């Protein structure tokens, strides 16, 4: 008898012992990350844990039970925020301007404490709209944002309202681009706008993902941006904010959510996230900042996955990892520590294009797991995720789900209600152990940057993506109505947002894209480059000198430089081509002394 046959028999026997010998399950019966779990967990599974040392209370070291002492009694999680930029293509096609849309979102209570923008492709790549690779992609991801001029004379006038509210009433303004330089450019443009409006930039509230390490893996090498450029610009912005803008979170310290979307598992999500966090933190420490000054500023962002218990336990493990890394690597005083907030992005990759109403259920499960894991912020994906950014209907459903969880289901009444469950504590511990092992492996190889430069991380992610596709293909993992129970598609349930004609673009440009182009040409006509050039020359010199580029970047944006020019000059200042794709050259009027 072969080993497989023997173990197969044992598996069958175990099932029989479970008293359910007739039930066959689809899929491989393991958790999403392949953890083999027992039928039931008992006190002996967590006998090695010490309550005071390993668990404790919410808001106390090691923070496994929550970042804050009174958790949801004090404040509910920050709600998913409309991706204003992301929704605009859809809205503008309907003739609704970004500003009107935003006001409507405020009225509906969907936009109450935070607002999030997404970047258009040219923003993410930090090139200008007239770059030959942009073409049909202009304005398809979000509103184009190439210059501060747009805030005052173009189609970004709603930014005046956002910036004012952010400075005066603490509205959290988020940039969700992830690609370091893209986030940093928008950050600089907003600071330039704030200064032009005569407001106090030190009062700017908000956060950005700003994680070029993840982008290098995920966004095709930062849109071909050299990693050194991305890292330098990113850490310059972090340092600038830690020293000058104390209400701002200038990075989330590692956006493993995006890698999770590619197919990595829970251990990799935590391992890579903290690998990035350590990479940034080490550099900041080298620049003379202490962990106490910045350690709790990056809000931790993870993926709210469909695997319910894995998600809950991952969030609990993440906080404990942060606390132990702060104590053991940076020597932080545990009595003075403040755990940063933890947030989830609900998993976009769990959403299907088929029978989208089921995505509403998936959303609910992911949001519930996030709340039980103690999140302080959550961005839900709308049921339209598989085909488009959220529509208004999508946001309304999301807000409804969150309110039902909070006020009908009464989940947030008690902090960490699953704490102390044999299974939850065992799984939290298991996830932390395995993730720490991986993190140690990365550190032994020289840290995240070294592992990215030699391609090890990329290979791991590629392998994971393969595996993810194969397990769905082979039915080892289940997606209802997609690779199992497909008869549920026999009666398609139509939902709004799946009906707009995305194919309308045809050979030309949409109405919105025509507007994007004309805005760009208006700007080019109205700008006097004689006023712009000196600030770009200064930025070039600052970049070459190795000093922090942020002040010079902000100044260049104030002088109406474009995103492509600013990053082009930084690239050249660091010894790289002006255009990372090497398709356009520096403008004639721009020369260096």
């Amino acid at each position: 008898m072969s080993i497989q046959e023997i173990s197969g028999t044992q598996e069958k026997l175990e099932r029989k012992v479970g008293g359910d010998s007739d039930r066959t399950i689809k899929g491989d019966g393991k958790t999403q990350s392949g953890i083999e779990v027992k039928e039931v967990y008992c006190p002996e599974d967590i006998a090695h844990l010490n309550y005071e040392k390993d668990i404790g209370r919410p808001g106390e070291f090691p923070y496994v039970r929550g970042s804050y002492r009174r958790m949801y009694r004090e404040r509910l999680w920050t709600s998913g925020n409309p991706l204003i930029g992301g929704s605009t293509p859809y809205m503008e096609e309907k003739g609704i301007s970004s500003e009107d849309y935003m006001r409507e979102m405020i009225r509906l209570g969907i936009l109450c404490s935070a607002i999030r923008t997404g970047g258009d492709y040219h923003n993410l790549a930090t090139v200008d709209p007239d770059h030959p690779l942009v073409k049909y992609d202009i304005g398809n991801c979000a509103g184009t944002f190439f210059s501060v001029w747009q805030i005052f004379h173009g189609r970004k006038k709603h930014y005046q309202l956002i910036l004012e509210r952010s400075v005066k009433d603490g509205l959290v303004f988020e940039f969700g681009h992830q690609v370091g330089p893209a986030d940093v450019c928008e950050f600089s443009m907003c600071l330039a706008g704030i200064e032009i409006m005569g407001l106090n930039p030190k009062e700017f509230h908000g956060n950005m993902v700003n994680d070029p390490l993840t982008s290098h893996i995920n966004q095709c090498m930062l849109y071909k941006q050299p990693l050194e450029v991305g890292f330098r610009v990113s850490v310059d912005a972090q340092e600038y904010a830690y020293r000058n803008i104390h209400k701002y979170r200038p990075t989330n310290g590692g956006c493993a959510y995006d890698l999770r979307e590619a197919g990595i598992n829970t251990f990799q999500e935590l391992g890579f996230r903290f690998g990035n966090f350590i990479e940034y933190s080490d550099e900041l420490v080298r620049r003379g900042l202490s962990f106490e000054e910045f350690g709790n500023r990056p809000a931790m962002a993870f993926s709210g996955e469909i695997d319910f218990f894995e998600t809950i336990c991952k969030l609990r493990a993440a906080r404990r990892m942060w606390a132990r890394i702060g104590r053991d690597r940076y020597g932080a005083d545990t009595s003075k520590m403040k755990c940063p907030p933890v947030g989830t992005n609900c998993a976009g990759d769990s959403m299907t294009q088929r029978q989208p109403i089921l995505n509403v259920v998936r959303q609910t499960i992911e949001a519930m797991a996030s709340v039980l894991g103690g999140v302080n912020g959550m961005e839900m994906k709308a049921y339209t995720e598989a085909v488009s950014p959220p529509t208004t209907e999508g946001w309304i459903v999301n807000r409804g789900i969150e309110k039902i969880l909070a006020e009908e289901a009464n989940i947030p009444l008690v902090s960490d209600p699953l704490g102390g469950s044999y299974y939850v504590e065992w799984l939290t511990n298991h996830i932390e152990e395995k993730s720490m092992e991986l993190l140690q492996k990365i550190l032994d190889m020289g840290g995240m940057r070294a592992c990215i430069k030699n391609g090890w991380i990329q290979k791991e992610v590629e392998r994971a993506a393969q595996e993810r596709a194969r397990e769905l293909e082979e039915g080892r993992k289940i997606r209802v109505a997609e690779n199992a129970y497909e008869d549920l598609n026999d009666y398609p349930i139509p939902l709004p947002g799946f009906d707009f004609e995305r194919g309308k673009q045809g050979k030309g440009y949409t109405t919105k894209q025509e507007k994007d182009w004309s805005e760009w040409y208006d700007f080019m006509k109205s700008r006097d480059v004689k006023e712009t050039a000196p600030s770009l020359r200064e930025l070039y010199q600052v970049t070459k000198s190795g000093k922090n580029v942020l002040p010079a970047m902000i100044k260049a944006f104030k002088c109406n430089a474009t995103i492509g020019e600013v990053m082009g000059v930084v690239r050249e200042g660091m010894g790289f081509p002006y255009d990372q794709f090497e398709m356009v050259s520096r403008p004639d009027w721009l020369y260096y002394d």
Partner: protein
Amino acid sequence: MAEKPVRLVLAKLGLDDHIRPLQVLSYAFRDAGMEVVYLGCFQTPQTVVETAAIEDVDAIGLSFHTLSYFGWIDETMNVLKEKGMDSRVSVFVGGTIPPEDTSALEAIGVRGVFLPGVSLGSIVDQIKQTVSQVRDSGGKTV
């Protein structure tokens, strides 16, 4: 004599960086005995068609995750025609494309549109079948 393996270029046009599907496909095609010329992201119709000519491929596979697919594909088909390669080289497209656009893409000469939810196996089968038909007909339009 065994039939020559199918040879194809895989690329994404413009700035759309959603690279995973293309990576997953490249391994699936390789495992199915095809020869993959992997161009990856940030290509233009010119670079893709030039590569197809130099590498003497049977097919071009383009993957999209944005609204911009129609413009890019249309341009690619025109460059192929200009170079007189359109009958010999089949173009396949995949991504988040609304099902109702399939016929419009086929009308401009695309020989296979793969939508979300399609299995890797059936993509492989359809490409192999189409390529072998094109070869049998001596590179005339299928």
